[in-house]
């Protein structure tokens, strides 16, 4: 197997060039999926026979919660890659993804809380799923704060990588919290082994929204990483050329 591809991944310039080609497609896909998903979920999906229209919150709550966890796993993988192979871009990814993950966790918690009021009769319950998601939010805060507290970039990269890897233990706890403990929270909508418990008119728009959120996440991450690469490499000639052209 050729390792040139892997080493190229570490090159900031290669990343900048390849991501420029990707951006228009990613933007088109994400915006389209978002518009289709929102209109489908709000207008055309049938209301729930028990929950009425409050169930439509699922179309943002579930995608945000999935992204909150996927993003954390990305941080952990970036942490391992950064520690083992010293790949510069891994730390850029880790730093840029952390605030996105924190916001996604915030959206999952707040929309869940709003949905909880008409459905469970309470905005908050110290239940296993909700508490483990709150811990996820604090893990993101911890990683962001650790970065801000350490001024040396290499030391900060190592410290945040270790914290991201250690915190990944929370991810299976979130996932299985609805099975291990008695909980108010309903089990997962999408599983690999079983068909969704809801009819196709309900879960298909949800799938579109999950894809839209993945697209938006990737787009936002790429934009943030590109800016961070320009900041970190501002002395390199190719960066100077880009910045002078834009001035």
């Amino acid at each position, binding site marked *: 197997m050729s390792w040139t591809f892997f080493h190229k991944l570490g090159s900031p310039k290669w990343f900048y060039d390849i991501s420029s080609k990707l951006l228009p497609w990613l933007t088109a896909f994400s915006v389209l999926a978002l518009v289709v998903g*929102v209109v489908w979920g*709000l*207008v055309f999906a049938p*209301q729930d026979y028990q929950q*009425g*229209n*409050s169930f*439509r*919150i699922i179309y*943002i*709550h579930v995608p*945000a919660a999935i992204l909150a966890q996927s993003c954390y796993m990305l941080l952990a993988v970036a942490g391992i890659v950064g520690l083992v192979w010293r790949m510069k871009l891994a730390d850029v990814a880790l730093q840029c993804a952390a*605030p*996105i993950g924190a*916001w996604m966790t*915030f*959206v999952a918690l*707040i*929309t869940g809380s*709003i*949905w909880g*009021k*008409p459905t469970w009769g309470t905005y908050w319950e110290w239940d296993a799923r909700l508490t483990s998601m709150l811990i996820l939010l604090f893990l993101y805060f911890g990683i962001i704060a650790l970065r801000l507290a350490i001024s040396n970039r290499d030391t900060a990269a190592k410290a945040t990588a270790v914290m991201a890897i250690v915190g990944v233990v929370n991810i299976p706890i979130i996932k299985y919290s609805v099975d291990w403990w008695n909980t108010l929270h309903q089990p997962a909508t999408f599983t690999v082994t079983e068909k969704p418990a809801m009819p196709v008119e309900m879960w298909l728009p949800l799938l579109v929204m999950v894809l839209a959120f993945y697209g*938006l996440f990737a787009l*936002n991450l790429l*934009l*943030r990483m*590109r*800016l961070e690469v*320009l*900041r970190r490499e*501002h002395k390199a000639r190719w960066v*100077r050329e880009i*910045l*002078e052209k*834009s*001035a």
Partner: protein
Amino acid sequence: MSNLSEFIAMGGHGAYVWSAYGITAVVLILLFLPPLLGKRQLVQVEARRRRREEN
């Protein structure tokens, strides 16, 4: 127009549904503002530094 007001009311759940979607929209805007505005800012900072170095 009653169709529209029915849609907005969401069968009595309007406040919950719209606040959840509204907060999400605001968060998405907040997520995209820094990377979109950041490049212009960086270009300006670098241009200022170049001018300083040239003088």
